[in-house]
Structures are given as C-alpha cells and as structure tokens.
C-alpha cells in the first residue's frame, strides 16, 4: 500500500516536471519548431497527470487531439511562415520583462489562494463504468452544450475554409 502511494507521488512529480519543463521550453526557445516540440512534451506530461487523476478518457483525448491534431496544426503553421525557423531576430517582444512580471504576479495570487482555500472535499471517488457514463451524460444532461459544441465545430470548419481558400 505504502509503495503504491509512493509510486503515485513519484509519477505525479515526474509528469508535472515534464509538463512544466516542456511549457518553459515552449515559451522561451527562440527556434519555434523546437518550441513546438517543447509544447508537445508539455501536452504529454499533462496527459500523464490525467492518468494519475484516473481520468483515462480525458488523457486519451488529450493525446489524440492535443498531440495528434493541435500540435501538428501548429507545426504546420510555423513551417508555412518560413524564415521563422532560421531567423536570427528575437521572437520575444520588447515587453518581456513586463510579461514576466504579470506572469509571476498571477502565479503569486493563484498560489496563495490554492494553499489558503478550504475545499468542500469529497472522498476521491472512482467510477467503474466511467466511459459509458460519459457517453450517456453527453446525450442527456449535457445534450445542449454537446449540440452547441458541434455547431461551433461546423462554424469553425466553414470559417477556416472560407478564409484560407484560394
């Protein structure tokens, strides 16, 4: 029992480190292709964190959509705007010190509230038939947002075609 708990902690810390190091590389590297690879690393770490949280379906969706689709789109966009990969010009704007300040301030606030808030905690629960229940909920309780999101995808599809076609 104790070892399994210890292993969970190890997994959590390793995966969090992967997610955060990947994110750090993604926002600091000058070469944008490498930055995008950092982004993929970060997405993988986040997927691992979902596994630790026992949300397997979200983890798999994360891998398929974030790593499989979104990262590819981003890499595609970087390679289209060529010259970026090799350009010597800085990819940071002149306000990066201000941006760093804003980021740290935001973190200080979020850190403070995370450790001072008393959460209405429940016993962490595991749902055995999670995926059937997700499917059922999507077409019952969450039917309206489900339809709204499908309309959203349709609109995005039409919009993307309209604006990008020859």
């Amino acid at each position, binding site marked *: 029992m104790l070892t399994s708990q210890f292993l969970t902690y190890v997994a959590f810390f390793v995966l969090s480190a992967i997610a955060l190091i990947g994110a750090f590389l993604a926002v600091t590297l000058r070469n944008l292709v490498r930055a995008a690879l950092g982004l993929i690393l970060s997405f993988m770490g986040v997927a691992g964190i979902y596994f630790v949280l026992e949300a397997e379906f*979200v983890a798999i969706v994360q891998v398929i959509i974030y790593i499989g689709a979104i990262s590819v789109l981003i890499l595609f966009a970087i390679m289209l705007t060529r010259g970026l990969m090799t350009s010597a010009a800085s990819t940071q*704007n002149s306000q990066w010190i201000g941006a760093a300040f804003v980021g740290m301030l935001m973190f200080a606030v979020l850190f403070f509230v995370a450790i001072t808030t008393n959460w209405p905690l429940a016993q962490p629960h595991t749902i055995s038939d999670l995926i059937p229940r997700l499917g059922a909920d999507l077409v019952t309780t969450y039917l309206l947002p489900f339809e709204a999101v499908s309309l959203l*995808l349709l609109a995005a599809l039409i919009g993307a075609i309209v604006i990008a076609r020859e």
Partner: protein
Amino acid sequence: MIPLQFYLIVAAILFCLGLFGALARRNAVAILMGIELMLNAVNINLVAFWRYVKPAAPTMDLAGQIFALFVVTLAAAEAAIGLALIIAIYRSRDTVNVEDVDLMKW
C-alpha cells in the same frame, strides 16, 4: 493520496508560463502556443476538481471531465481558425502581421 493543492499549483505554474508566452512573444503562432498552455492549465484544474470536490448535484458528478472535453474541442476549433487566418495573411505576402504582434501594446 496526493493533495488537491499539488495539482492546483502545477496548473497555476502552467497557466502563468502560458500567460508569459502569450504576452512576451511577438509571433502569432508562438502566442497561440502560450494560449494552448493556458487552456491545458484550465483542464488540469477541471479534472482535479472532478476527482476531489463534492459535486453540488449527484447527477452532475462528471461535470469536470465533460467540461474538460468541451475545452479540448474548443482548443482544436481555435487552432484551426488561427491557422486559417495565418495562411490567409501569409498568402497576402504580408508576414509582418504574423511576426510582429504584441498583445500588450497594439
């Protein structure tokens, strides 16, 4: 059991790294990358809350996960729109607008 706070702190760091990226970069694609990191931080929060926080209504005990799935879908739609706009600008041979953006200024 790992305390909830650990997840929240990881999410907060990820969000702020993304925030920094979105504000400090001047390339449209790089800004989009920062925004995607921010959305990932939101999802860590949502899934962690699903696991740890008592739902207000028993029929909605999957709200956190389902919301996270909607956010992923939305992120994909946004990436598609963003890429389409970048291609359109690239076609107009005016790469300056993609490569010289400053979210804090304008």
